[in-house]
């Protein structure tokens, strides 16, 4: 299994060298980065910590990175980790009181939803720096593309692949660690878990911060790739639900589930776009929604979960 995965990753690394058309590279980069965010979300989602506000982390990281570059001239190579760190700090500030005060279930989902909206609205409100709802573009630097992290699709393909493999490694490490068993126990029965010595707040907080960091990494890199940021597509309820959709469609209980979900989502979107064109704007969310409902009704463990059960 691990060997097969390694071979697959090598194969993916070779894809840009085979003269693959830009269009497919673009789909690949987008899918991989979305897979990163979805994998990050599922790290906590699979333990019943359902966040509807991962857009808050993505938006924070992306805008911190882009504003550092535009306003101060800090290279995104530094800006990206700083942005991700900011997102993780936000996750800490939000998660600590939530878990300390036992905000769980619906309440947790709605608190995170509010956090996502707050970040989105802040981006809009600070329009003098962020461009508001019109969005912003990182300052182009044709003379120093590497420093500005502005390179070709091939370059981003490798970066996305690297980040994706990193996300999977984090999942794998988490899955094998004691933390994963502790979180499973907490999800089962928080009081029982606490009574056998599991530090509930700390375990939840740790996975939340990691989850936020991974999701933010994928999202911010996506913004850098597109060279365009806007509050609706990086923060708020829309993007947050989209991440959740991908993770659930693919299956949030398996390592590759969210990745499969991302490919599925992007593929579906492209299919609808090519099939219907712009005439049928709205077809994508419509189909998304129906599929999301169908998945939850009939395949709550997602595509991968379903396939694994068959075996």
């Amino acid at each position, binding site marked *: 299994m691990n060997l097969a995965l390694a071979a697959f990753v090598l194969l993916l690394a070779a894809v840009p060298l085979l003269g693959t058309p830009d269009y497919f590279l673009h789909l690949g980069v987008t899918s991989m980065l979305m897979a990163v965010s979805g994998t990050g979300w599922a790290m906590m989602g699979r333990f019943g910590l359902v966040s509807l506000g991962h857009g808050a982390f993505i938006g924070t990281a992306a805008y911190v990175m882009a504003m550092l570059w535009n306003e101060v001239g800090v290279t995104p190579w530094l800006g990206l980790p700083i942005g991700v760190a900011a997102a993780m700090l936000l996750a800490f500030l939000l998660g600590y009181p939530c878990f300390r005060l036992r905000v769980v*279930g*619906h309440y947790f*989902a709605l*608190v995170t939803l509010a956090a996502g909206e707050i970040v989105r609205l802040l981006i809009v409100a600070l329009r003098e720096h962020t461009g508001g709802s019109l969005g912003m573009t990182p300052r182009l630097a044709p003379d120093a593309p590497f420093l500005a992290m502005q390179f070709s699709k091939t370059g981003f393909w490798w970066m996305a692949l690297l980040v994706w493999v990193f996300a999977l490694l984090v999942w794998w490490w988490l899955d094998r660690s004691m933390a994963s068993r502790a979180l499973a126990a907490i999800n089962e029965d928080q009081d029982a878990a606490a009574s056998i010595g599991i530090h509930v707040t700390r375990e939840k907080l740790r996975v939340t911060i990691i989850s936020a960091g991974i999701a933010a990494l994928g999202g911010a890199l996506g913004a850098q790739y597109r060279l365009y940021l806007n509050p609706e597509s990086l923060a708020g309820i829309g993007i947050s639900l989209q991440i959740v959709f991908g993770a659930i469609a693919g299956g949030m209980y398996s390592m590759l589930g969210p990745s499969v979900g991302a490919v599925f989502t992007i593929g579906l979107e492209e299919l609808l776009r090519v099939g219907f064109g712009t005439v049928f704007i709205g077809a994508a*969310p419509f189909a998304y*929604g129906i599929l*999301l409902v169908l998945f939850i009704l009939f395949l709550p463990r997602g595509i991968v979960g379903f396939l694994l059960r068959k075996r």
Partner: protein
Amino acid sequence: MDPFLLEALVNGILLGGVFALPVLGCNLVFGVVDVVWLCYAELVMVGMYAVWFLHTQQAWPLYLAFAAALPLVGLLGVLLHLIVVKPLLGAPPINQLLATGGVLFVLQGGAMLVFGTDFRSLGVELPPMEWHDVFVSGTKLAAFCAALAGAAALWAFLKFTYIGIAIRAIARDREVMPLMGVDPRRVYVVASAVGGALAGLAACLLVVQLDVHPFIGLSFGPITFMICVMGGLGNMLGGFLAAFLMGLIVSTGSFWWNTEMSYVIAFAFFIAVIFGRPRGLFAR
């Protein structure tokens, strides 16, 4: 007092009235069925399109279009319950939340497919009222009164009818209800219908004030849920009061700062409330 501040306060109370109906509807459904309809604001959006379509495209008189929106969205609520929520009643609560989130996309995408992304205006406006230099939009005032009337009607329904009392009872103890001859599943359907109809009523009051477009739900959906939680999920009176509190925060926030910041303050206030009183401001 500064007439502009006074105006902001009056507008805050009027805005609270507008928030109140979806909050009551959402809370009613949550209290009974134990499911948050994440697509509640999108149900309101469908109602707004219905009124707009019937009035401007089919030339129905406005009151008839209003009268049609209530049962229409009520029916939508029943369908939502029967098709999406009911099969998931035994599933983890978060699955129900996410499934209604899927419906959010369906309704949003459906609205785009049918009506496009243009902003649609009803083109109805009542003259503003003036009182000691304080100007209040006549439309907003009328909507506010209608919202209060709707809330009063809901109160009477829950206070005086057998099914209404059963709805309040089931919110506290659903297991014991069959012993009273109450079929909980039937009460769920009734609550979903009433919750939907309240979304329909909210739609009537919003469509006279705002242009409708497929994404309008995103603009007041989140704050609706925040208010519900602040008041205590399922606590009708708490939600009603919290709606006015949020209305005042938003309108005075816009007076001192700007609209987005006022919502940022409102949401931050919400998070602070949850940290201070996890079961809502008015938890007993």
